[in-house]
């Protein structure tokens, strides 16, 4: 067993967990933040993307113990009183249907916009599509997800 302590959505949390506990299971089962989803077993689908110390991470690919001491943001921690521009953009552009992949899409979208801004690069449609390589959606055909991220990139 391992004691883990981290800041999740601005709140300090700690627990004793099995060594093998994945970060996603810690978030979902211990913290009961169920907006972060599990859609595959092989780190392909991206439904579990969260931010760890400001970087997008697939939380199914990281042990909770590896996030000890980290600052973690999940989809529940993105809105600050009002919806984050990325959340609003997904609503504005019909960037979601069943909603299952959406938290991961939003977390990846925020991360890619932040990275491109920091590097002074332009996030055009081709770049968004390439950056979404690690996030699978079965409903939208990606068309409106690309539009959503593009809108948010202009507003963030």
């Amino acid at each position, binding site marked *: 067993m391992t004691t883990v302590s981290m800041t999740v959505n601005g709140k300090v949390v700690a627990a004793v967990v*099995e060594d093998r506990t994945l970060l996603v299971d810690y978030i979902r089962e211990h913290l009961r933040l*169920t907006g*972060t989803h599990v859609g595959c*077993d092989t780190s392909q689908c991206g439904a579990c993307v969260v931010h760890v110390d400001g970087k997008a991470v697939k939380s199914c690919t990281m042990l909770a113990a590896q996030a000890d001491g980290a600052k973690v943001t999940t989809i529940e921690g993105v809105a600050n009183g009002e919806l984050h521009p990325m959340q609003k953009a997904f609503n504005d552009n*019909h960037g979601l249907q069943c*909603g299952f992949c959406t938290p991961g899409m*939003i977390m990846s979208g925020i991360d890619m916009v932040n990275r491109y801004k920091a590097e002074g690069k332009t996030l055009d449609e081709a770049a968004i599509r390439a950056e979404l390589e690690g996030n699978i959606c079965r409903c939208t055909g990606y*068309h409106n997800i690309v539009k959503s991220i593009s809108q948010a990139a202009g507003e963030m």
Partner: protein
Amino acid sequence: MSEGIGAAVKRKEDKRFTTGAGRYTDDIRLENQAYAAFVRSPHAHAKVTGIDKSAAEAKDGVLAVLDGKQLTGDGIGNIICGWAITSKDGSPMNMGAWSALATDTVRYVGDAVVAVVAETAAQAREAAEAVVVDYEELPVAAHIEAAVADGAPQIHDNAPGNVIYDWEIGELDTTDTAIAGAAHVTEMDITNNRLSPNAMEPRAAITKYDAAEDHYTLYTTSQNPHVARLVLSAFYAVAPEHKLRVIAPDVGGGFGSKIYIYPEEIVCLWAAMKTKRSIKWTADRTEAFLTDAHGRDHVTTAKMGFDASGNIVGFKVSTKANFGAYMSLFSSAVPTYLYATLLSGTYNIPNIYCEVLAVYTNTVPVDAYRGAGRPEASYLVERMMETAAREMGKDPAELRRQNFIKEFPHQTPVIMNYDSGDFEGNLNQAMEAADWSGFEARKAESAARGKLRGIGMSCYIEACGIAPSAAVGSLGAGVGLWESAEVRVNPVGTIEILTGSHSHGQGHETTFAQVVADRFGVPLDSVQIVHGDTDKVQFGMGTYGSRSGPVGMSAIVKALDKVEAKVKKIGAHLLEEPEENIVIEEGTVKATGTNKALGWHEIGLAAYTAHNLPPDMEPGLKEGAFYDPLNFTFPMGCFICEVEVDPDTGKTEILKFVASDDFGVIINPMIVEGQVHGGIAQGVGQALLEEVVYDESGQQLSASYMDYTMPRADDVPSYDVLHHNTKCTTNPLGIKGCGEAGAIGSPPAVINAITNAIGNNDLSMPATPSKVWAALAASKIAAE
């Protein structure tokens, strides 16, 4: 009316999904919850000769280790297929027994043998690994050819030669005669590749048993919770209907795969009773590949005959359909009444004959996946048309135009009666948007860069809102295919709509509310859609086959009609005006020609206080309706795809994709376009990327996202989605349905474009770079 029919209203349901507040089955945790894990067969075909549970039972946290003999011993029934098909010779279909836990034989890799219940999910998994099952392996038929070969292994005793049925439709003699006399005959062998639906939310179930009430609750990832309850009680004898509540909360996509009642739900309900614990089971992705019903998997030979001027004279089709190891719930209807009945396509074809051989194999059961039979029909018809045009040296658009059905209603030789459409209108719209006439210049530009450019089209038609109930009953359906709705106007005037449709991404909470807002002029936010709970909603048939628009919303309209009639009576009484002068506008009940009016809330209050109602009127304002359609609806359209193939690698890039659809009346264009986008991506996935692959021993080689190529964002283009609509004449809103069209029309458009680029019609899906490269090489050799 900015929120009514035709408005691109943003979705009401999005807030919970974009903030992580969605409530999917696996997000729910019940009191006293334990976890189930399944021991599954690693063999495609084997006798179960022994099960040793002792090591598993001794593991920490284990509550129960349950097998098939216990399950059947407790009277749990076999899983059934609900649509009876009769063979050519009049014999009934051969349905093999399917126990939720195998008793003596396993028939596919993934077949459930033992269920383990433990305190934690990890303990259940560990204990499942400790169960020792002895198998005696049997010969395997993993593909259609192997299953129908002489001496093939017998998968079910009551299905000789692994044949489930040998069915036919249409006139053989007249079709043969027509083709024999044709000036040109196009012949093709067409395979429709096997797919896995891959809703992003894996299937899950949570079951609860209340011993004091002898009552069961099932939370499940279902597209149709009422049908689940009906089948679980009537056929599987898990619990009587009034003692079983089925809840399908937020469901993360379905595409057909969540229509069916699977072994895991049956076993978890039964195990909850055995253990007196709530039980959760959630599939992992590999389990989903190994157990979710697959789609497609047809092998077809077809001949299409044309007269000297290019008119189709006859179409003859012979199809073998892979059903997998067991008959899933609606499997039998897919290659028959959802496939062969669409073989007339958008064309005037005087003679059609189709025979379908349904066969068992040692693979996952196959059932309806987005489109269900109609993609297979559309792919066949549209590849035949394209190939025929090339063989006859005709323009593929003109050959289609010449053969289009132009007058409605149109009775095809294969049951369907098309009510409406303007096929040329969609063709023209798509060709203009695709700049069809400018293609040769673009092709030359590609050629200058050493690339091969191709353009292809498909003019699909499909059938939605499968109905009417009496008609489908006469064709073998075990259920009626109506829908129900209840409209509750509350005393304060807010409105709840209870619907038997189920939303798992389609946006019903918005579109259904728009229909209500349109009718009464009330704000969209005052309307709540209630669905997915058998304790809340009257019986319903659920969501599949693009039926929630044409059938589900029609039921709401019927209930709204009744509410409107009562509101007008109350209004007339309170305003002391004749009923025929009462109108409902912008949430106000008015008497025309006067300045008398009542607010919507005043009507609600009057109905529930009942202090001053017309004589003999019952209090309250709640009406229900069951709507049984008059006919299928027939969405159709023209899709055009333009590709560029790299001749060095065989890689295909889609440069442009245009869709012009006829969906009848559209409630929310934003949502409808989203449905088309998603459908096209699944169709492009089928055409270029996706295939479930089995080796000869029946092992699935594509059972993870490392192996099965899901379309990613950079595999698909942006889509140009257009509409040229004609109103459906057989339902009150004029809706045709839009959920499946994208997946139905797109595969032939993509393949026709690639075959155009490479100059070889002999190409199968998925058109991977290696296949395209080989087909290109073959066409070069043929040219030399």
